[in-house]
């Protein structure tokens, strides 16, 4: 039997619906590119995506209220399912915000793909369950909310930077070849100069929040476990992610590092991030493991 997280009680039904909205939006962006940039498709897709965002906000409210109703009193940011749906939520939020400042319709294709993938994983993977279960007692803390929100906003920004990096690499490699020839696909991608700047701006936002989130995490660990740093795999991978984007920032001011290499770092950084976020939990058990709750000796 196919496993699926679809329940109106815990709000997962609304996330499942939002998954189909994201597919719709993705399809819209595909049509936008295929039609050579008919604005109407991009507009519909964006409208659908804003609708998705509103629906997901509602779904979070439902989940949160439900957790209070059944006496768990925790924000729904505890297990793998929670984190995946929240990830898709911040990725969509990030794109909508970026869209206000830039004419980045082509980015929508990548963003809806990533947000859709996260939601598909949340809804259909047997590893993820939408049941609201009490988390480990260590999670019962007001630090949780700030730690998770800061880090996931950073994740959202880093995801956007990866999407922008991909667009940059497509555009930049072709820009020279087709210098004079009009290419209707490439024309839909903003100029590489704008992309380069957007990658930087998105990454500095992500880096700032990543720093805040990790410091909060250390303070919380100090309060809950008696040590601000334990070289737990998740912590170590968070450090690696942080160092990767620190590398990006230093490369930016170093001569000889071209925009193309910067875009590659943005793309590579995202893959490290996904490993730090999901790979660690699924492959390397530790203090932060939420794939297998209760198996660790730590309370």
């Amino acid at each position, binding site marked *: 039997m196919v496993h699926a997280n679809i329940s109106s009680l815990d709000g997962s039904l609304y996330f499942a619906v939002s998954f189909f909205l994201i597919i719709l939006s993705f399809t819209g962006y595909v049509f936008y590119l295929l039609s050579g940039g008919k604005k109407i498709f991009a507009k519909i897709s964006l409208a659908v995506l804003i609708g998705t965002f509103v629906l997901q906000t509602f779904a979070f409210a439902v989940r949160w209220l439900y957790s209070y109703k059944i*006496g*768990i009193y925790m924000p729904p940011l505890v297990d793998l399912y929670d984190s995946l749906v929240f990830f898709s939520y911040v990725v969509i939020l990030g794109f909508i915000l970026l869209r206000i400042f830039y004419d980045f319709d082509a980015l929508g294709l990548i963003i809806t793909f990533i947000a859709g993938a996260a939601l598909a994983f949340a809804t259909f993977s047997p590893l993820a369950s939408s049941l609201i*279960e*009490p988390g*480990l*007692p*260590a999670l*019962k*803390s007001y630090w949780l909310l700030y730690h998770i929100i800061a880090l996931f906003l950073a994740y959202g920004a880093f995801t956007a930077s990866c999407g922008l990096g991909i667009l940059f690499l497509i555009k930049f490699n072709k820009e020279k070849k087709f210098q004079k020839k009009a290419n209707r696909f490439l024309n839909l991608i903003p*100029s590489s*100069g*704008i992309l*380069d*700047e957007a990658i*930087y701006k998105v990454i*500095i*936002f992500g*880096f*700032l929040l990543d*720093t*805040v989130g990790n*410091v909060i995490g*250390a*303070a919380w660990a*100090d*309060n*809950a*476990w*008696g*040590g*601000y*740093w334990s*070289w737990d*795999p998740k912590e*170590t*991978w968070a*450090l*690696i992610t942080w*160092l*990767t984007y*620190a*590398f990006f920032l*230093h*490369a*930016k*001011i*170093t001569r000889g590092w071209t925009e193309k290499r910067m875009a590659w770092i943005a793309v590579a950084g995202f893959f490290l991030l996904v490993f730090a976020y999901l790979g*660690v939990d699924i492959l*390397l058990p530790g203090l932060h493991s939420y794939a297998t709750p*209760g198996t660790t*000796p*730590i*309370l």
Partner: protein
Amino acid sequence: MNLMMTVLSKLKKFFSSIKLAMVLFVLISAVSVIGTIIDQGDPLVVYKMMYGPFVFKILYYLGFLNIYHSWYFIALGGLFTVNLIVCSLDRIPKTFKIIFNPDISFPNIPSNGIKENESKKTKYYNFNSLKSPNEISSISKRIFSRKFGKHREKSGGKQFELYFSKNGIFRLSPYAVHLGIIVIIAGVILNIAYGFRSYVNIDEGLATRYSYLPSDKNRNGKQIKLPFKIRLDRYATKYYKDGMPKAYISKLSIIKKRKVIMTKSIRVNHPLAYDGLTIYQASYGHYLPSAARLVLINLTNMKSAVFNKHTVFAEPGTLYDTGINGLKFKFDFYKKPGTNGIPFYISIYKNKKRLRNINFLENRRITGARKFPLVFAVYKKRLIFIFAGVKEYYYSGLEIAKNSYTWIIWTGSIIMIISLFFSFYFNHKTIRVKIYPSESGKGTSVEILAGSHKKMVSYYKKIDETINEFKNYI
């Protein structure tokens, strides 16, 4: 002497380069990854079993089993710190000069414009006007000071060189970020040098004055004498309705000179701090198997004035005296639960020979207000066993940490975060203007050089707008 100077200057160049920092970012990350793949800090025996003696030896000598304390990882950390300090100290004087005492003379621009690799960092404009240099100078002061701040001026005769600069002070913020990180590192070092994380298990009801440092080799860590005694008054696990643990709670008393100084319940996220030490809930367990609390009532002896009963905490499978001559009993569990759903029974023994097994019965009527069913077993109208619950022999695992210097780490973190914000969102904006009579003799030449050290496209757009506005006036 000369050789030493060369070596020193080369060392300084090496340690002050950003490229070294980038190489260190990669190396630290790469080494860290190994530690996430191989479990760290387990007893050596475990590794021997996992990897076999040969691979174990290789891993051991490479330091992979305790990589975050290996000499090369610490060396990388040291190198990183030196790099951070030298690099910052090396650049700060230059940055100070740019902020407080910049060279305001307009650079010579070749006739074919600025070089390609400079074009991303600066934008160059030149045009002619019919207005006089004096007029243009006052117009540019009016227009540019709005967006580019205060100006400095170097003028001689009819030539003006103007330099506008805004937010220059924020050029120092990256160094403040570095300072924050150095403060964090200092806090970490102080914590390692003067702090500790020690562990102790205390049985319920007992007190201890010692805790133990974890040792990587065999967990027989060094003993630490605490400045007070800790007594575990009570340990309890609280559960949600569905059986998931909700909280692990230890009620602790701090005892000094045989006096209880304070009593407090601790749980995860809610430690107890006293006398420079912090006590955390770390684990729990049973130091003895759980036992059944059985109340034995001797019916052979009812005439005596004293109601003849006593309590036995019976571990499953162990023989206990009944209080009646020669009769012993054992409390145990059925392999399959009995028909009435009570999973345990009593066996009666005499001279190590089992006489019979007796079942427990349940009477819901006589429980009354307590709402607890009375579970009891009767042996031949001589003896009643009342099951009065389970006695658990808990110990609580405490972590006792001395981390008096963590406040330095948090101070460093706050410095780092605030300075990151300023270094990201407050950019130094400069514009240079040179105004001089045209060489042709007619009108005035104006040259403008605008720079952004972050190579931002949008910034140049804004400059373009300002320049266009400026052009309208002249």
